[in-house]
Structures are given as C-alpha cells and as structure tokens.
C-alpha cells in the first residue's frame, strides 16, 4: 500500500476506473470528452475554466493535467494566473458573502 494519498503516476491510470464498472466508466469518459470539445465556448476557454476549477477543487491530478493542457494550447502563464484569480475570487467571495449571515445573526441576537 502506498504511503501517500497522491501519486503523480496515478493520473495515467485514470482510465482504469472503467475496469470495475465498464458501463458507467464509458459513459463518464464519453461525457467528459464531449464537454471539452469546441462548442459555444472554445476548447481553449474550457481549458482555462478547467484549470481554475482544478485549483478551487484542489485536485493535484487536474492541476497537472490542465497546466500541461494549457501549455499545449499556447495559453500563456499570465492567462493561467488570471484564470486562477477568478477561481480564488469566487472562493473568497463565497466565504465573505456568508458574513452577511453572521451579521444578520449578530444583529438578531444582540440587544
């Protein structure tokens, strides 16, 4: 048994999840690849969204995958970092907007 939760080599084995449930695995990978095709959004834009979400989800596999994917698409590091700040802004905004709930509660409880 490995001694760490994450191993970079495991990313290459992602496809193996289908071995224990072929039907759902196939459906997932089919869905996944369709999502990233050119559509109303370009594949390039989707790659940047994926990179930002990879960080907000704190998924090391996804960060590896979509950093490389971005480089392959010619996305610059400035674009990548801006995408991350979008993710970070939503995460911090999501924390802070709950402050209104805190304030409501304080205002209700305090004399």
């Amino acid at each position, binding site marked *: 048994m490995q001694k760490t939760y994450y191993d970079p080599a495991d990313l*290459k084995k992602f496809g193996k999840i289908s071995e224990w449930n072929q039907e759902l695995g196939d459906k997932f990978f089919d869905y996944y690849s369709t999502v990233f095709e*050119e559509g109303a959004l*370009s*594949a*390039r834009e989707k790659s940047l969204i994926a990179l930002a979400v990879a960080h907000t989800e704190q998924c090391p596999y996804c960060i590896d995958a979509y950093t*490389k*994917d971005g*480089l*392959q*698409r*010619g996305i*610059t590091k400035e674009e990548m970092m801006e995408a991350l700040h979008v993710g970070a802004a939503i995460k911090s905004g999501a924390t802070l907007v709950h402050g209104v709930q805190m304030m409501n509660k304080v205002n209700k409880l305090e004399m």
Partner: protein
Amino acid sequence: MTIKSLQKRESDLANTNRQLDILSNGIFKSGELPTFKDKISETNQFPLTPKKLEILQINLGYMCNQVCEHCHVDAGPDRKEIMTRETMLQCLAVIENTGAHTLDLTGGAPEMNPDFKWFVHEASKAGIKDFIVRSNLTIIRANKKYYDLPDFFKEHNVHVISSMPHYTRGKTDKQRGSGVFDKSVKALQELNERGYGRPGSNLRLDLVYNPSGAYLPGDQDALEKDFKKALKEDFDIDFHNLFAITNLPIARFLDYLIASENYEDYMHSLVEAYNPAAVSSVMCTNTISISWDGWLYDCDFNQMLDLKVASKVQHISEYNEDLLNDRTIRTSQHCYGCTAGSGSSCQGSVA
C-alpha cells in the same frame, strides 16, 4: 543566459552514440515503454519503407545566428560546418535528374552559407520550381548583407517557412533568445510588404510552431487561429499556414529534458500519443535529407544522430535514386516524435 552548442560545451551528448544509447536503454530497455519498432510492428508497419521521393532536404550548414534552447541540430554561431560549393555541385547534378519536385533548404540558418544565393540560382536553372527555405526570420535583420533576402526570396518564388514559437514576446524570447520576437515581427512585416503571406498571394509564407518546453503541441488548426488573430491584431501580420511540430528528444532538446528531469515523462507522453495513422505519412517516406558534407539520411533528425541511410548508396557523390528507394528507413525511439497525436513533419501535422 547565453547558450552554447553541446559541441562547444564538450557535452557528453555531443556524441551521437551517447544520444542513441539513452534512447535505447532505460525505460525502453526495461520494457516500461515499447520500442518504436515494437509499436509499429503491432500494425504491421515495420520496417518503414520509402514511397515516392518528393523532397530533397538539403542542410546547408549548422551555423546559425541564434542558439535556441530546443535546437535538434545543435546549431549556433560556434558551429562551422558549412556546405562547400563542391558539394553543392554534386547536389545540382542530382537535382537535374531527380524525380523529386521540391528542394527544401535548411540549416542552421541556410542563408548564412556564403553560396546560398548562388545555389538557389543554379538549382532554379536546373529546373527546380518549388523551393522551401527554412528561415529563422531574424537572419533577415541580423546584418545589412541579409537585408535583400525578402527581395531575393520573391525573385525566386521561394516558399518561406519560418519559426515562430509564440505570438507573445515573452514565450518567443525565452525559447529563442532575447530580442528575437521584435526582429521576427519586423522580418514578417517586410515579407508581408512584398506580398508574402497575404491572403490569396502565391508567395507562400508559413510559420512553424514548436512547444517551448516538455510538452506536445496542441491542435494545429486551433493554434493557427490564435496565431493569426494575435499577429493580425497586434502587428498587421498575415501568414498562410501554421505547422505545429513536435520537439524530438535529440541534441539540445534531449539535454534539456534530462537536465530538467522531464525525459521519462516526455517519452511517456510521446508513446501515449502514438497514432498508427500518422506512421504511413511520416516525412522520411517521401524525403531524402542531405548533410552539409553530402551524406544521405532518411530525415534531418537521423542526420543529427548520424544514422546514415541503410543503403549501398550513402553519399551524394554516388547518388542513385532507384537504389535509395529500395532501402528500409532507420528508426529509433526519437521517431515517436513524428507519430504523436496528429503526427509531425517539417510540413506540420500529417494525420
């Protein structure tokens, strides 16, 4: 940081046998990854054999005004290997009788060969209609004696294929050296002024993109769209097509992969992206590569690994097209670079 050629650095990798050792041992010897031979045998494509010869690719010398980090030629100002007029005359004798229709001139910077213009003139007289010059662009602005190159290219209807790793200054200069982006932009504008690359123009101007790091190129069409949009908006530059070329793990790129501990992952990426459909169209099937000193190779990459053609005929002085067409193509693990994804050749994707 100024980069020197592997040869100048007296690097271990300046020895081509050392490069071939690395490509044959390690993860390929242990069976972690299949060898190229085993892989193409799965679809009965081994051994690779030539189809109709279409292109003579002549390397006019390894001298270059640039020292790019990824260069598979290990070219640079410190390389003195230059094709002599005597070897050019041997090439011309071949050109007069060849079935090939295209002459593809490469280097180094082919324009730095002092007999470059003479050779193009003579080859033109010998009946070549389709010239390709692989220009690094900055040579056009490097010295006054090269300022007339755009006019010279136009006069001979030369098809210019130029390297341009990115449409941003930062990524371009990182790979090819400080100031390269601005000079390349100026050179492209000069070519555009003469009609090169403009929509509908017969003066062909194509760009070559290759990744600036240990990753494969993305989709050629999507990259072309991004390059066209950015270069047009920012600099009013037009070009015809973008060729996305995969970096092959040889010479300075191999050195970089090993030094940055990316070699094994990169080879995994190449093998995972292997596309059997690309095998039948790899450039070694329609090209003969000729080195500055007249030796014959299956491609420019094999030339840099000193893998001469597997034929009785190995030198331009004894050139015999029938015998050459009867050969098998020499391969090693670097060949995965030409069969990854949509494939890669000097003309970009092949599948």
